[in-house]
């Protein structure tokens, strides 16, 4: 206790040197990429004069933190990250219902996301699942370019496909759930088993496979298409593929944390984040998702959701804890234990 006091004394003595700003008026948990979070923070401060303290963590980490802080919330609003943890937070009653006046400007899928969770979350962007390949490596190996999910199970790609582990990554869980919805439960698991034979590694993080493809550490990576496009824009020789059978998608979401200390500011941010001005910021930071405001600008490089064959993804069913547990344990016992 004595040392505790001492450390506090020194700590606070030095804080004054680093000139901290006044207490933040809005505590933002951000689960998108760093630049996007920063530009959202700065632009909101400029637009409203409200001071924002932003913490960037992946959606899984943020969800774990909100869960841990449930009895004494520190955050006000949680912006970005795939929809499942937002839905789960709604299910566990960690987030606050809110109907924004901006709703009539949004795509129907964004509103559907809100309605399925009792208005406790809302869609801010969406991105479709697909894969990307390293064009240099493909040419060097003289292989044909894959175009469909089914192509990835061909023997010539043995040991060249990478995807994330559905136990650890929301992206890979979306893949698993999409296959079950595209091919049916039996067909989907049969597909995952055949794919398993070609997988060189199940990564922990969802976007790691496309980074590995960019760096030449795998030929093909199964990821969200906007991540693949961003890798290409970053300068890597990666080609993005929209699978011919159709594909599933995620809805990046936003929620207000239940018991937020700055509820009015949280709602102001919520409304602002759904506006065209806020959503146009995405393109400035190479985020190629489709934004939820109908009027938001679109990039030519971004995959056009209108031309994709999107399945009718059942977020309520596949986002629920029970179905998730069931599919994951089935994948664990039936797929991941097979020899490669």
């Amino acid at each position, binding site marked *: 206790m004595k040392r505790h006091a001492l450390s506090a004394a020194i700590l606070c003595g030095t804080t004054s040197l680093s000139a901290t700003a006044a207490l933040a008026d809005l505590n933002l948990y951000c689960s998108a990429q760093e630049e996007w979070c*920063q530009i959202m923070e700065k632009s909101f401060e400029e637009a409203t004069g409200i001071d924002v303290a932003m913490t960037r963590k992946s959606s899984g980490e943020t969800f774990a933190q909100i*869960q*841990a*802080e449930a009895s004494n919330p520190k955050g006000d609003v949680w912006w970005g990250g795939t929809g499942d943890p937002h839905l*789960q937070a709604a299910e566990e009653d960690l987030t606050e219902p809110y109907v924004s006046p901006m709703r009539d400007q949004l795509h129907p899928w964004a509103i559907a996301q809100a309605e399925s969770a009792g208005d406790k979350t809302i869609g801010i962007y969406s991105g479709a699942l697909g894969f990307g390949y390293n064009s240099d490596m493909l040419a060097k190996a003289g292989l044909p370019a894959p175009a469909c999910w089914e192509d990835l199970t061909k023997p010539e790609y043995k040991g060249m496909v990478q995807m994330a582990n559905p136990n650890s990554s929301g992206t890979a869980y979306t893949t698993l759930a999409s296959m079950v919805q595209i091919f049916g439960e039996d067909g989907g698991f049969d597909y995952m088993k055949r794919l398993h034979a070609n997988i060189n590694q199940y990564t922990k993080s969802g976007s790691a496979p496309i980074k590995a493809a960019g760096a030449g*550490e795998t030929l093909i990576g199964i990821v969200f298409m906007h991540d693949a496009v961003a890798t290409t824009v970053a300068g890597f020789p990666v080609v993005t593929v929209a699978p011919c059978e159709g594909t599933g998608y995620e809805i990046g979401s936003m929620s207000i944390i239940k018991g937020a200390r700055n509820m009015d500011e949280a709602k102001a941010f919520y409304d602002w984040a759904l506006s065209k001005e806020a959503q146009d910021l995405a393109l400035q930071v190479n985020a190629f998702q489709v934004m939820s405001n109908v009027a938001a600008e679109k990039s030519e490089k971004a995959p056009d959701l209108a031309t994709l064959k999107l399945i009718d993804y059942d977020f309520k069913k596949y986002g629920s804890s029970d179905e998730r547990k069931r599919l994951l344990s089935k994948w664990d016992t039936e797929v991941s234990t097979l020899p490669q």
Partner: protein
Amino acid sequence: MRTVSLEQTTHPVLIFWIIAGWVGYCILPWYGVDKFWSFEWLVDGWPLDKDYAPAAVLIAMGQKLWLAPMLLALAAPLLVLGRRKTDPLYAKVLILAGAFGFSWLVAQGLGIGLRGFAFGWLETLFGPLEDRQFGMGYGAMITASAFLFLFTQGIAARGAVNGDVFVTGAIGGVIAVVTVFVFYPILIMMLAAFATDEGGYSFLGFFPKLFDYRIWSLGCLTGGRCGVAWNSLFLAVVVGVLSTLLGLAFALVLTRSGFRYKRALRALSVLPIITPPFVIGLAIILLFGLSGTVTTTVAEVLGVEATRWVYGLPGIMIAQVLAFTPVCFLVLIGVVEGISPSMEEAAQTLRANRWQTFRTVSWPLMRPGLANAFLIGFIESMADFGNPLVLGGNFDVLSTEIFFAIVGAQYDQSRAAVLAVVLLAFTLGAFYLQRFWLGRRRYTTVTGKGDSGMHAIMPRGLSIPIFIVVGLWSVFTVVVYGMIAYGSVVQLWGVDNTLTFKHYITAFRVELGESGLRWSGSAWASFWTTIMIATIAAPLTAAVGLITAYLLTRQDFAGKQAFEFGTMLSFAIPGTVIGVSYILAFNVPPIEITGTGLILVISFVFRNMPVGVRAGMASMSQLDKSLDESSLTLGANSWQTFRAVILPLLRPAILAALVYSFVQAMTAISAVIFLVSARYDMSTSYIVGRVENNDYGLAIAYSTALIFVMLAAVGLLQLLVGRTQIGRRTSHGEGH
């Protein structure tokens, strides 16, 4: 021995703590105050505003009446001020007052929280409470310390540890802080291992989870895959042994050879310890990955297909051995330097040749160092999380499994807790094996007697292989760091190799604006926070660690074994678990410190303290007790002895503790990622964000800058702490 002090009737230490207790109770704000050190609260309604009021004022206003009983405990010690220490009443009153005050303070803190009573049974007993309380502040903290040290003074007066006030106080203080910041959060976390899906607790549900085939499967013996537990164990043993041997090789070259470029070698061997996470992993992929330089070259020369061989056990092993050898080296160098040359010379005088001397004298005396080094390598490997994440391939280990059980798509805290139990069992097992191996032998070689020998040079049969190993390893290290430096100045690592400084400019831009300098680079905020936290945490870590080591090696008291176990515990638990358990434990009253810089400092102090303890113990077990005794005989008390005799001889251990904790604060990631907040973002969490975002250039540029900062800091620390001057002849032409 100290009859003089026993006759005193004024007790300065006692008076100090009595005053502290009253100040904490009657003057300082009892509850936590935002921005305490700006002292705005002084002019903002203190002492009557109930957010800033001291406990005494609150009670006078008829609020928080449960704080009142502590007044008794504060008043009681005043009665014995005039009495002698030998008076039985003196001890009795202090013990009673301290114990009662402290336990009441803790009990009310835990019992009454944000929503009134914290436990259902309290509510059924007393009815619902309309009031509530927030986290404790400085008033409560100082009062608590006062109670604690009143209690230990009472214990001392009764004759415990020879009536030594300093030693009993230190023991009490260390026990208190370790309990609060290690046991309490771990306990909260462990409760989760027994949690069921329905939100209850079940003892029976724990065992199926513990004996899950995914943890214990032995499939790899028959061609399948092994469970994570075996993977981790195997990896940790191999890494522990290899890093210890390499560390020893470096230490031997530095102390027992005529090697010329010792300084360069020393700097090189310490380089990996100051490297932020992920960077070594990325460099190894660029060297040995599927498209890596070495892999493609070798594949072309041999005419074979390039493979992903590095992903999995080989990659993690290379990266971890590279990363942990320096820590082992730091532990070993102190021990190897400390071995008394007289013993070696005595052996030689008795006509032992160099090899016999090394095998029968030097080697056995190195055993405490070797055991400690292995233990540290083993535990570090078990808890390491960055390298398996980047290089793991399909080779799963416990630490990453725990991380993704918490943050991954499973959100399964109870599985994480179960895995943490397994991990803890392994590390504690290693800890007991180590004690068993060391046994009860004595390793003392630094005594008060004159000792001006010279270290024997290694036997030739040993020095040749050691030089080869050290040489190869040094070349490898240089190549890896060359890659890193190169990576920070190219456009896009591995793809576009045009040289550029843009990454450094993005991160560390400084502009000259109207109001002076503007630190507009994107890395500055996290950079200054990191420097600040590291600077505060390092000396605290060293202090707590060395005091603990002193108590463990020099003092005998009841419960010493449990005490030692407690101080090592936080090291054996992976950072991820610490991070989550800290959030669970310290986000709510009585101690509410999440989102502050303080929680980062505390987590660093208690995570790194064990290194200070181990290094201190390894060095202290070499110092003869006669040194202490002569100091005590000459009338010094134990604090003076510690400060003037032991401490100066411990310089290598102090340096190890300081360097390690400073560097850890700049490079650790697993606990930090849970504890950073908007106001206190750390460089490692910033770097991870860049890596996640494909921005390798910026991540590596930032890491490179940090490496230089740490090099400067290590140099500065070395200068400040100085070298231990054990009276010996200068050896092997090394200039002084």
